[in-house]
């Protein structure tokens, strides 16, 4: 665990960091992100996690684009982009006192003080992607769930983490009970485990009929878990089943309980968010967005307003009590960025690249840099993108031939040290079609 002393840096340094951070935000975010609407745009990839401050004034989101963003919910604007992780940022937690934790597919947890450009501390130990974070009610412990089959409990004051390693498959979710006396973890291994945090250390194992993706704990002790079968299951803190509600036909991937305990929001890959009345165990309403997976949900302290984030890269604000968007202008269909190229084989090949790259000069960087004007450009020189040192040292100019070679042999061979996932295009015709498409679509 790295030192956390830097959290006590002098105010002068903090001011400088804040200026640098603001500058980074202004450079990195598309203009739409700064507009005063209830729609929070800024991420260049699916929004994987959301957390809202206790006063409801701010939120933090994280994304496939390897960043987290701190938002002002009163100004509806981004206030800071947190860049540290080398892969998708899957989880966030607000720690109070202007601090937050982010965790990613790189297996690391970063502890941040808002306004500083670099994390105060980095927690390392997981050996696979981390997919969920939660902080204990007393703020002393951070829990992380990982695809290395473990849960880790990190004392935030420093010290060795406790490792909970009884799951036999990926752990997908983790939550503290409201009294802080137990921790609940849910896994792909068809079980929820309730771990007492004092006394006997043996967990209560709750067998379930489906892989579990998400968990939330209510203030009254009840636990809600979301399953890959599209159902929300309710458990007592003792592990007894206490009802179930079908949220929809598709797997539930994110779940939240309103602070007043009246509602459960369960988001699924089908693009809808089920709002469940906890008291009657019925589906009260369904929030229908643009039809793309909704990866994250979080209630504001008023227990009515719900934020959702999903595969269209946008954070939306809903009235969960009525099922309406707070700003009806936000109802929009996620457009197909390649619609204008229908029938173009090169565009179809490029479809595998859309998650990370944009084409036009007016489009922002995503997890990867924009490809606008790529031909004739030296590698690792696209403005506004943080390239790895390994790429900066390479002597490559992007031409139709070098782009084709990249996908013939694969990025790990052609550009060693790249963060780009390994992808190859075996067909020579497809590589040629891709290059021809890029020549047309990336002209400035």
């Amino acid at each position, binding site marked *: 665990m790295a030192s956390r002393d830097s959290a006590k840096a002098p105010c002068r340094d903090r001011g400088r960091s804040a200026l640098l951070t603001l500058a980074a935000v202004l450079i990195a975010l598309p203009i739409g992100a700064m507009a005063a609407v209830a729609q929070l745009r800024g991420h260049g990839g699916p929004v994987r996690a959301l957390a809202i401050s206790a006063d409801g004034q701010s939120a933090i989101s994280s994304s496939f684009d390897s960043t987290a963003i701190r938002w002002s919910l009163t100004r509806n604007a981004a206030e800071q982009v947190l860049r540290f992780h080398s892969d998708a940022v899957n989880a966030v937690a607000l720690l109070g006192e202007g601090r937050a934790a982010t965790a990613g597919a790189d297996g690391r947890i970063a502890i941040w003080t808002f306004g500083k450009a670099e994390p105060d501390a980095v927690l390392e130990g997981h050996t696979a992607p981390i997919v969920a974070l939660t902080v204990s009610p007393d703020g002393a412990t951070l829990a992380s769930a990982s695809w290395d089959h473990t849960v880790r409990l990190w004392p935030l004051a420093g010290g060795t983490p406790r490792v909970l390693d009884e799951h036999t498959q990926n752990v*997908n979710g983790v939550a503290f009970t409201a009294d802080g006396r137990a921790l609940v973890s849910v896994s792909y291994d068809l079980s929820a485990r309730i771990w007492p945090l004092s006394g006997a250390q043996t967990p209560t194992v709750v067998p379930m009929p489906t892989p579990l993706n998400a968990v939330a704990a209510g203030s009254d002790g009840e636990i809600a878990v979301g399953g890959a079968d599209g159902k929300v299951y309710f458990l007592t803190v003792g592990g007894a089943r206490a009802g179930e509600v079908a949220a929809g036909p598709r797997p539930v991937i994110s779940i939240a309980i309103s602070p007043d305990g009246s509602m459960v929001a369960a988001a699924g890959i089908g693009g809808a968010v089920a709002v469940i009345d906890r008291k009657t165990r019925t589906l009260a309403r369904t929030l229908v967005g643009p039809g793309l*997976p909704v990866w994250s949900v979080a209630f504001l302290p008023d227990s009515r307003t719900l934020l959702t984030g999903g595969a269209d890269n946008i954070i939306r604000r809903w009235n969960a009590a009525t099922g309406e968007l707070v700003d009806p202008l936000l109802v929009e269909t996620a457009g197909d960025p390649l619609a204008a190229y229908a029938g173009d084989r090169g565009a179809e090949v490029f479809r595998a690249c859309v998650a990370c790259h944009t084409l036009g000069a007016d489009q922002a960087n995503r997890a990867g840099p924009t490809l606008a004007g790529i031909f004739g450009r030296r590698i690792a020189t696209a403005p506004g993108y943080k390239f790895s040192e390994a790429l900066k040292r390479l002597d490559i100019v992007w031409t139709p031939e070098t782009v084709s070679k990249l996908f013939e042999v694969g990025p790990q061979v052609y550009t060693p040290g790249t963060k780009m996932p390994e992808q190859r295009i075996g067909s020579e015709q497809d590589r040629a079609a891709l290059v021809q498409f890029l020549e047309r679509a990336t002209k400035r």
Partner: protein
Amino acid sequence: MARMKFLCDADRCIECNACVTACKNEHEVPWGINRRRVVTINDGKPGERSVSMACMHCTDAPCAAVCPVNCFYTTADGVVLHSKDLCIGCGYCFYACPFGAPQYPKVGNFGSRGKMDKCTFCAGGPEADGSREEYEKYGANRLAEGKLPLCAEMCSTKSLLAGDGEIIAQIYKERVMKRGYGSGAWGWKTAYRETIES
């Protein structure tokens, strides 16, 4: 064209794990990955049932809906396959699958992400049928040889059925007519959005 499906008759599974072993052997599946597994519910208690789980090759496959790089495709036989050349190992399909099918190989360094692996219905991948490259990435392509998945062929109690959906549904209906519905055709409705009427 046949619509290929799996059917697991939970009243017949005896948890012998032959399907798991056959799959690993046929496709030389690496250590740590099980394309198929047997899950026992209520182990040792009244109502104990075992089911053999793998990719069910769903109608309107949810894994394809979440893939950010569109690496999934459905063959003319209804088999859901994916391209390991395109997969970036993000793991989103993990969340989407009701059957715990996607497997994610552990790799040494975080910088080198592993490609997702799953049951192919013994139908290989996008490479040429029966080619060495196809075998190395996806395992054997028995379908191209006119054979059905080995897991089902090996099943000693014929709990696990694989083949044309209409034919295996008919076999199951005949069993239900004789013995009663029992615990059902596990996963059938989830995967194919239909029930088997007896």
